[in-house]
């Protein structure tokens, strides 16, 4: 590794934790710079990376704006809004909605057929995370291995697990899965620009994103953010509005949506989204589709999306009831998510809560900013003791009993981490195994709830029927993820618990994908090496620029000229396809800057010994 990258500022760890908002429409990465959270530019100067992944015929993978541009011509090989498919099965209702994809039917996970292979939503999401990680590394000039990744508060266990798997696949240690509304509240509550405007009190977060809706009621009390209740709908968002508007457009041009080609479907959805954005400001717009010009008024689009907006009402009422508060008791309502820009959504929100909502932090960025703050806190770099998030589990957890009835074990909106134990007895002579079916949801019957996992307990000591007493403990950790342990009470023997998740990938599958992503055939080893050396080139360039900015006085003219020349050469060669040439220039720059690096190292050690930070001195 180049010397400039190995300089350890003795007062600051080199790897930085980041916060990632893995959104339905856009994804962002942010970090905390001197106590202030900032988003990182990922797509030119923009912090928004479109959550679009294109699988090209030559096996290369393109993410972001360029993938989005390829979507109309390659609708099946370009995955848009992958978040909606996370943790879902192939036959899920949500999976079969209007969309251009070629899906493998059935199965415990969704599989897209792209350019002759099958990929899962976890792999698609990992591609987005990889790009965010690489961009953060370029900007920060350090490696990035740890992240707080946000999820909708109403995500169930399978959806959370899928998100965590995607992080693992992208080479990120997920420090915490943080609920999006809680992240937003954190960014608002710790907004340094307005420290006196967020007093202690009771707040509601209304988060309508591209694919999910969350509402969270929370208390802010001297730095403690305590979630009282949360509600939502993981299949409600701006995408539903796009689909409704696209249907309206199809109607106008006299096309049956079920018979439309994937490409036309994609273009209609994109046109619908664009019209929706334009009508946020304007009263009317003209949509171009299939060579036709379709005029649209805001009023008719409002009428089209009104039933979708109305679906936020029931979750809001229930969250308020669960928190035991009325709208009048709220000290503020925070808006999150791109869809809350729409006037009709703001009006509806105002009616529900009886007050004008707060939207002074960019609703697209606020979640990533909050995630960065939490990452900083967890890594022990932030404020010492004054900030803490206390969250809840969104859905009740239960166990299937006789007759397909659910026995509720942990109620919804219980503060996490939490645990609950239940004792079962064996029903047969010498029974050595036991099956437990865990479900999530609020309904009484197993069939109406979402199946989470089936656990099989083995190795129960043989005893007469009814004598073996099994204590099964369900544990929800601080990520909202479920673990199950079991113990036979009379012998105290811990049981092996074999988990069969109802949806999602098994540990072995994720492991295999991880291996595949490392190998990925010999054909694109060159491509991989090229990408890696480019990342390294960007990192060393960024690190040297940072160092020159801080310690220019350590360089003499000759040394400065040598480094400048080496930097220029590397900058020019970065786009070359020859990874060896780029590697050589990286090494040349390393050689040219080695003496400089040594001097910086000495200086920072000297400062550390003086007990002052570099910032204080410089």
């Amino acid at each position: 590794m180049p010397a400039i990258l190995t300089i350890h500022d003795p007062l600051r760890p080199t790897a930085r934790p980041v916060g990632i908002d893995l959104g339905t429409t856009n994804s962002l990465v942010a970090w905390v710079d001197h106590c202030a959270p900032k988003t990182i530019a990922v797509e030119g100067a923009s912090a928004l990376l479109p959550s679009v992944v294109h699988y090209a015929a030559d096996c290369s993978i393109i993410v972001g704006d360029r993938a989005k541009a390829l979507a109309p011509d390659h609708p099946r090989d370009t995955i848009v809004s992958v978040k909606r498919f996370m943790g879902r099965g192939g036959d899920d209702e949500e999976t079969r909605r209007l969309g251009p994809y070629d899906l493998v039917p059935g199965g415990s996970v969704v599989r897209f057929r792209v350019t002759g292979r099958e990929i899962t939503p976890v792999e698609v999401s990992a591609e987005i995370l990889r790009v965010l990680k690489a961009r953060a590394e370029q900007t920060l000039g350090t490696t990035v291995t740890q992240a707080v990744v946000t999820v909708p508060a109403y995500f169930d266990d399978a959806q959370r697990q899928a998100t965590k798997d995607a992080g693992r696949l992208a080479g990120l240690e997920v420090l915490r899965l943080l609920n999006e509304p809680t992240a937003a509240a954190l960014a608002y509550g710790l907004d340094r620009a307005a420290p006196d405007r967020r007093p202690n009190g009771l707040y509601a977060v209304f988060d309508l994103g591209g694919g999910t809706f969350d509402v969270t009621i929370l208390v802010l009390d001297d730095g403690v953010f305590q979630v009282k209740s949360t509600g939502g709908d993981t299949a409600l968002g701006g995408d539903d509005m796009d689909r409704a508007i696209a249907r309206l457009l199809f109607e106008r041009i006299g096309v049956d949506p079920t018979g439309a080609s994937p490409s036309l479907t994609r273009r209609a959805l994109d046109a619908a989204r664009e019209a929706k954005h334009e009508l946020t400001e304007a009263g009317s717009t003209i949509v171009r589709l299939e060579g036709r010009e379709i005029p649209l008024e805001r009023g008719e689009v409002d009428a089209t999306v009104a039933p979708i907006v109305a679906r936020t009402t029931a979750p809001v009422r229930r969250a308020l009831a669960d928190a035991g508060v009325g709208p009048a008791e709220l000290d503020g309502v925070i808006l999150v998510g791109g869809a809350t820009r729409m006037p009709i959504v703001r009006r509806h929100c105002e009616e529900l809560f009886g007050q004008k909502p707060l939207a002074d932090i960019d609703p697209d960025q606020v979640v990533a900013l909050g995630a960065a703050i939490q990452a900083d806190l967890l890594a022990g770099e932030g404020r010492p003791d004054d900030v803490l998030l206390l969250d809840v589990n969104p859905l009740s957890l239960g166990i299937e009993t006789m007759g397909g009835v659910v026995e509720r074990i942990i109620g919804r909106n219980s503060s996490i981490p939490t645990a609950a134990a239940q004792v079962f007895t064996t029903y047969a002579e010498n029974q050595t195994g036991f099956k437990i079916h865990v479900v999530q949801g609020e309904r009484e019957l197993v069939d109406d709830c979402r199946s989470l996992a089936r656990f099989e307990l083995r190795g129960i000591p043989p005893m007469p029927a009814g004598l073996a007493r099994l204590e099964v403990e369900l544990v929800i950790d601080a990520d909202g993820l479920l673990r199950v342990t079991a113990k036979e009470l009379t012998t105290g023997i811990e049981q092996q618990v074999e988990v069969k998740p109802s949806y999602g990938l098994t540990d072995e599958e994720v492991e295999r994908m991880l291996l595949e992503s490392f190998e990925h055939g010999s054909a694109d080893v060159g491509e991989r090496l090229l990408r890696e050396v480019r990342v390294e080139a960007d990192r060393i360039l960024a690190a040297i620029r940072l160092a020159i900015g801080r310690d220019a006085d350590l360089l003499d003219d000759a040394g400065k000229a040598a480094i400048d020349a080496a930097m220029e050469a590397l900058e020019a060669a970065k786009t070359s396809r020859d990874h060896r040439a780029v590697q050589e220039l990286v090494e040349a720059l390393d050689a040219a800057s080695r003496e400089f690096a040594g001097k910086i190292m000495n200086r920072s050690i000297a400062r550390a010994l003086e007990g002052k930070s570099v910032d204080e001195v410089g």
Partner: protein
Amino acid sequence: MTCWSCGKPPGAGAFCEACGKVQPAAPGSDHFAALGLERRFAIEAAEIERRYRNVQRRLHPDRFVTKSVPERRLSLQRATAVNDAYRTLKDPLKRAEYMLALEGMPADGEASPDLLAEILELREELDAAKSAGDAARIGELRAHVRRQQDDTMSAIARAFEGSAPAQAAALVHRLRFIARFLEDASGTVEARVQCPRS
């Protein structure tokens, strides 16, 4: 008792007085101890909230991310117990039932005929008001039952203070009916029939 980490006496707090490391909860400690509260029924809701947040400020696993494995495990155990205590104690009905359990008193006796008759009458009135869409009447009924709830809770507090758990048990029974009535009378009706889509 010695500290698991330094071997010195750790003192009574959550953290060792000698080395500062987090300690397991004292054996046999109850939900009240977990929140640092005296064992009694009459506690202000705000007091429970305040204690809960202050305890979690020090014991929550987020405070231990960079600490050693045993410290992380102990923090998780204690934070889980604190959440359990909070969930039980913040709800007056669950709090009362828990206190009866601590006294070894079953809380599931027979309802008196008088109580059943009273509840039945209130239910009929509620159903009539609901089907007539009479929001004002529903409000009145709710306010009436809320007052009964307050009275019952004061009576439960007195019964526990006077070491009369059998009397408390009968009152807890009444409180349970009241809670169920208020749930049905509140706006959660609409929400309860809604299933979360997943």
